[in-house]
């Protein structure tokens, strides 16, 4: 089993200080921080979780923040569910996208990428990390992708779903170019819905945390449409877009709509040669958590099957967050399970087959 969304945390953002260049270390040491000393410099989304967004049973017994203790992560997640590989997406690092200063943002992302190697990847062979970049600085992001993208334990490049514009926009093409050069997918994780980024819903900001959380999937729709329409998957044939925590139930409806409108207005985007749903099937992957739960759980799957969802979905738990999906309880149809819980991620991230898998298939 592969868990495609695990949040490794720190108890204080001061862990980044040794990894920051002197010019920006002072910003964190002496400069203004939104949450006081030890907090991470980023703008906060305007919806505050009224109970905190961590599982209360995930606080390590020895203290510290949920997700900050590797041994406890093993006990509650990796060992408990026999997870072969987990993709670490950090906790606050993707929020660098909210900062107006793109250079400070990129320095923080780079510091995180060095810290995650030392503090997490070095501890456990099962762990893979996402390479966090500041998308508001495409040239700086591309340089960071080239700096570390060849490291075998970085599985993908990661940005927040909150953005200044959708990620297919030519503004971001230096990032896609660098991803293609190092052969990594670009992953988009829910977050960054603050600061310089656009509000995630077109009719104005929602009011309450649960209301907003259910709607933030809208950002995923925008990135899917943009990457397809701008021809990212024509220009870089190996490009892969991964949506993390952006929901999955909406995907068939959006692809059906894109296909129909493209058929009529193909002339707007003459660089495209296939239907949007065909690009999506071959180039876009989505993680399952939080898996939508219809009144009849079986109702989720027929529409996903229509667009080839079995090849596109990858299990994620979102440990240690409040909306964690338990791999044992998650309702994936038996005939989808091998691909969704393991195979699709193993192929995307070019991970070796599990020991014994070959024999089992004979």
């Amino acid at each position, binding site marked *: 089993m592969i868990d495609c969304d695990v949040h490794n945390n720190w108890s204080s953002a001061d862990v980044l200080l040794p990894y920051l260049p002197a010019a920006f270390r002072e910003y964190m040491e002496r400069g203004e921080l939104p949450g006081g000393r030890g907090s991470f410099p980023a703008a906060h989304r305007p919806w505050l979780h009224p109970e905190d967004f961590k*599982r209360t049973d995930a606080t390590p017994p020895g203290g510290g923040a949920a997700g900050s203790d590797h041994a406890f992560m093993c006990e509650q997640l990796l060992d408990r569910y026999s997870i072969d590989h987990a993709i670490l997406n950090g906790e606050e690092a993707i929020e660098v996208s909210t900062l107006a200063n793109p250079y400070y943002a990129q320095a923080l992302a780079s510091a995180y990428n060095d810290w995650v190697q030392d503090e997490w990847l070095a501890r456990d062979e099962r762990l893979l990390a996402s390479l966090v970049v500041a998308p508001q600085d495409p040239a700086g992001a591309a340089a960071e992708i080239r700096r570390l993208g060849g490291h075998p334990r970085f599985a993908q490049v990661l940005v927040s779903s909150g953005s200044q514009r959708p990620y297919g926009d030519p503004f971001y093409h230096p990032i896609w170019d660098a991803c293609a050069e190092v052969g990594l997918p670009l992953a988009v994780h829910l977050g960054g819905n603050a600061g310089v980024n656009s509000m995630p819903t077109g009719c104005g900001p929602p009011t309450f945390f649960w209301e907003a959380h259910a709607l933030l999937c809208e950002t995923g729709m925008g990135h899917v449409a943009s990457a397809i329409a701008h021809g990212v998957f024509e220009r870089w044939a190996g490009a892969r877009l991964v949506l993390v925590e952006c929901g999955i139930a909406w995907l068939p409806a959006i692809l059906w709509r894109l296909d129909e409108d493209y058929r009529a207005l193909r002339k707007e985007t003459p660089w495209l040669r296939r239907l949007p749903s065909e690009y999506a099937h071959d180039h876009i992957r989505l993680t399952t958590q939080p898996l939508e739960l219809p009144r009849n759980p079986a109702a989720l799957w027929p529409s996903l099957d229509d667009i080839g969802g079995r090849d596109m979905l990858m299990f994620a738990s979102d440990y240690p967050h409040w909306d964690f999906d338990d791999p044992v309880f998650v309702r994936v149809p038996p005939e989808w399970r091998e691909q969704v819980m393991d195979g699709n991620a193993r192929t995307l991230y070019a991970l070796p087959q599990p020991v014994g898998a070959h024999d089992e298939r004979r």
Partner: protein
Amino acid sequence: MTSGADSGRRHVVCAAAELAPGERRIVEVGGRSIGVFNVHGRFYALHNGCPHKGGALCAGRIGGTVVPTGGRSFVYGREGEILRCSRHGWEFEIATGRALADPRVRARTYPVSVEDGRVVVTV
């Protein structure tokens, strides 16, 4: 512990004086994990597996909540009566096991009595 054919297996949890109002104790009875609670002097027992997705319900925070008002006032009440699952944070009424947001969802409850100063749960 005696065992009655009609009432199930009886298990002494602790002396009633050892479980003060607001406190809980999580015990293993017959292979089941059960949370026993003292809410304002009355004792209740809930299955320690959340009916939502199996989290450790009884290890969650005990407190009050914002009560339904039917209007735009926010009234905090029911202090000590509400248990919030440690996994996903669903709220349950300790006395009945019912989920506040959807009373059709219910955590299993067990009868509790105080006999000779001892808290006894029947499973």
